[in-house]
């Protein structure tokens, strides 16, 4: 293996380590939010101020970890990866910017139910991921 290929392998390892870190943050968030939902349901939905404070700290820490992980990702990837992310984000943003007012207008003329923000959020995320995956597929 040449000198460049060794550097490339190191780079790939770093990339996947950061991605694994970000996935871990998502897994921790999923585990604790599920645990929290089950725990509060078992108590009949009751939340004490101590539980509230603990949850707020947890959410803050997860948000900080996600922000740090994303920053670390962007400073370590190359310009093609950044461009792929920017294109994915832009197309995802358009999906949101078009779908929400369209649904809202349809609701206003009484053709649909009110806009479901989580559904639109999911649609925008899926569109962004599809655009990103398409670019990755083209430069594989």
């Amino acid at each position: 293996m040449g000198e460049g290929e060794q550097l490339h392998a190191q780079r790939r390892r770093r990339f996947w380590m950061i991605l694994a870190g970000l996935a871990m943050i998502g897994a921790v968030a999923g585990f604790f939010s599920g645990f929290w939902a089950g725990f509060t349901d078992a108590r009949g939905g009751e939340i004490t101020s101590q539980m509230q404070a603990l949850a707020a700290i947890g959410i803050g820490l997860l948000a900080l970890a996600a922000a740090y992980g994303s920053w670390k990702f962007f400073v370590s990837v190359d310009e093609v990866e950044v461009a792929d992310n920017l294109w994915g984000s832009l197309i995802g943003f358009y999906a949101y910017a078009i779908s929400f007012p369209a649904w809202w207008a349809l609701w206003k003329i009484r053709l649909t139910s009110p806009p479901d923000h989580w559904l639109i959020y999911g649609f925008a995320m899926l569109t962004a991921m599809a655009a990103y995956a398409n670019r990755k597929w083209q430069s594989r």
Partner: protein
Amino acid sequence: MENRLRVLRAERGWSQAELGGRLGVSRQAVNAVETGKHDPSLPLAFKIARLFELPIEDIFSEGNSNG
């Protein structure tokens, strides 16, 4: 933009991963530049030129651009 990256790389017997490692970019990035799917930034173009010890215009030339 058109480029001679693939030819220059082949002349040295380097794989895309080898060139990517030397440039500090991924193999996919090298492929994207070689196939014209990505026009490199000026810093990357200068890095490529330095690595091959050629002027930029000997590697890149105007042509069809895919952005």
